[in-house]
């Protein structure tokens, strides 16, 4: 018992967030990931202001041009400027990914925290629902729903959020279970504190790091899922598009050597997804929490 404080020598106490920042910046991959995400956000949301293109009307005089001239990355089969389209599609991919990731995390947090804190039969029932959900592949549900409804951007966000909250709910439940038996929560309860107070003041603030890490991974997953669905033609419909949709549209062209229709959106998906995963890893180091397995 006395050894709890014994074997870990500590130097000067350092403010917690600065230590976290230092741990994060030590993970070079995470810093690179952060840079990639910031660059892509600028590219998609600020880029169109500097490099203005028409992404709604087709221009059949300008189809299938190679990179160079006034079209830096060439044009596609209906005359859209490819670089502009990469920005335009990226807007949808990033927006849907971020929003769906956040939505999944919010639902998962509420579900997991309720189950973990309530405990007993409610916990058992809620977590069996999660188990059942995990047993069905998210992609399958997503495809069925998309096939029935052909969703718009908002619809896609909601559907993605609804199929991917299961993993964060498990993480948050586990965190809540340990937090609710901490001595400070017991002390609060034993001296007449309400459940609401325990949750608001102690359990949620202390699970923030777990939740943020989970959210980061969820965003990466969501971006990938959007790409899947759109690739199969079940995502946002033309003339709107996203990176997955661009891949799908460019696939036929790839055999005729028009690589500029495939490589840029493919690279963009890979880079952004890897970047979000790297950030998640870095945050996990920084906060010293257990992430997903």
């Amino acid at each position, binding site marked *: 018992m006395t050894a709890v404080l014994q074997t870990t020598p500590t130097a000067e106490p350092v403010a917690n967030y600065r230590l976290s920042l230092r741990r994060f910046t030590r993970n070079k991959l995470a810093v690179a990931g952060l840079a990639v995400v910031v660059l892509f956000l600028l590219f998609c949301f600020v880029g169109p202001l500097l490099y203005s293109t028409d992404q709604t009307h087709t221009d059949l005089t300008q189809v299938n041009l190679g990179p160079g001239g006034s079209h830096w990355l060439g044009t596609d089969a209906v005359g859209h400027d490819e670089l502009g389209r990469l920005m335009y599609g990226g807007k949808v991919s990033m927006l849907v990914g971020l929003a769906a990731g956040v939505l999944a995390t919010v639902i998962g947090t509420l579900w997991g925290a309720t189950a973990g804190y309530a405990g007993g039969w409610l916990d058992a029932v809620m977590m069996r629902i999660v188990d059942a959900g995990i047993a069905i592949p998210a992609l399958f549900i997503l495809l069925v729903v998309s096939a029935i409804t052909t969703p718009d951007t908002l619809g896609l966000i909601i559907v993605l959020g609804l199929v991917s909250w299961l993993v964060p709910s498990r993480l948050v439940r586990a965190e809540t279970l340990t937090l609710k038996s901490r*001595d400070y929560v017991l*002390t609060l309860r034993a001296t007449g*504190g309400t459940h609401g107070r325990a949750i608001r003041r102690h359990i949620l603030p202390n699970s923030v790091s777990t939740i943020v890490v989970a959210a980061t991974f969820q965003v990466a997953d969501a971006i990938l899922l959007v790409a899947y669905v759109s690739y199969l033609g079940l995502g946002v419909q033309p003339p709107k598009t996203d990176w997955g949709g661009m891949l799908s549209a460019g696939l036929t062209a790839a055999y005729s050597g028009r690589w500029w229709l495939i490589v840029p959106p493919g690279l963009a998906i890979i880079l952004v997804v890897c970047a979000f995963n790297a950030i998640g890893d870095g945050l996990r180091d920084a906060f010293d929490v257990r992430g997903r397995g």
Partner: protein
Amino acid sequence: MKETEELKVANILEVEDLGVTFGTDTGDVPAVREVSLHVRPGETLALVGESGSGKSTVALAAMGLLPSNARASGRVSVDGTQVVGAGEAELARLRGRTASMVFQEPATALDPLTRVGAQIAEVVRNHRSVSRAEAAREAVELLRRVGIPEPERRASAFPFQLSGGQRQRVVIAMAIANSPGLLIADEPTTALDVTVQAEILDLLRALAADSGTGVLLVTHNMGVVADFADRVAVMLNGEVVESGSVEQVLLHPEHEYTQRLLEAVPRLEVEAPVVESVPREVAGEPVVEKAEPATPEGEAVVELRGVSVRFGRGPGAVQALQEVSLTVRPGETVGLVGESGSGKSTAARVALGLVAPAGGTVSLFGRELGRTRGRARRALLSGVGVVLQDPVASLDARMSVGECVAEPLRMHRRGLSAAERRARVAEVLERVRLPRELAGRGPRELSGGQRQRVSLARALVLEPRLLVADEPTSALDVSVQRTVLEVIAELQGELGFACLFVSHDLAVVQQFAQRVVVMRAGQVEEQGPTMTTLLRPETEYTRRLIAAVPVPDPVMQRRRREALRTGVTA
């Protein structure tokens, strides 16, 4: 050193000018500086000190087991082999053969998925080329030597099928499997109950005496030192400040720190003080009663009547409490003692309303807790202060000290303005002898003792009528424990709250409580005024419990040990 003329036998362990520095996130931390010591075959050197004194680091350095962020300098030789800077292959030959180690926690020292016999046999076969069958036979023999009953059968047991004490015996069997010349025991009994501790110490003592093994015993417990060691080295801030024979250091300490340390150790009075020189037959007779404070009158602050608690359901259910009745009256301190698993913490949690009893009733300040709900229940509980064991988990690291202490005010004194709250927090912080400036700091910046005093401040900020303290000092060093206990006692005098004090440490309870309740296996074994119950216990169990506590006086401890062995319990 003074003992140079005794240096005829080659030392089994020799440490010279050992220095160890840890590289951490926040810079280098020197842990050990210029430590020199030695252990001769057959003798036990106790390395004592408080948390962070570097005693465990010295032990790890002697085995070449320092973590990768540590840098060692100086010379450590085990049976003539230099350990600092030695290669892994050389160290592997040394460990388990020439020197072996017993760690604090027997639960994690064994592989949970391997039968204990196989684990011992593995150690044998690591160092000697004997057949599988021969190693298995040796394992059984070793289990017999460390006092495990039915060793043939127990060899095929998994660690979880053994008790904590038996597991530690298995760990010791592994340590002595290759008859090492040096045994390093790092807090070998700290995780065990006192009665088990006494058995393990007896075992280690016998093994060392039989085989001439040198023992380096790392401990913070002066009683264990008195019971076991031949020589003592006292460490403070990474340096050895005093060393000498156990009698010399424990009875006539020279260094100021050693004196302070020994003074802070709570001593269990095991014999009525006036009869020190009186023969044993007379000591058994009723002695003049120490002036007991009159039993406080008035309505019970908290009362448990026939409380039973079960954890779990069906055949796996555990009966944690059975028909437990106890009462705490206004202003008095009741000590709740017992070994681990006796249900003392559960009883405290029932009193706090954290655990709902399956049978029996709990009344708090005259109201039945089980029948009070909502606002009324919260109001009732606002009269209770709580201090729990773990100084780290007791405070939310995301809140400042001030916010932690102010939390009960926010819950129960909603009318207070922020300025009034701040003033009240500052006042109560000073009451527990902490500077009021601490309110702005984070709990991470505080030491264990300071954290426990912050917990105490939080418990007392509403001026409760009852303080429930569950092992409030057992994670602290003795000198820190002393301050915390003094603060509690002083404030109790001023504020007059009653106190339910849960502890496994009989000496602390003896100093602190007017009445004591001894628990065993979920039941109350006996209860009564502290001095009566702890000096002249009625039950055999309490008698054994008291006899097993080692006192930090080597002469008296030797006498008690012999008395215990011959069956005459003190």
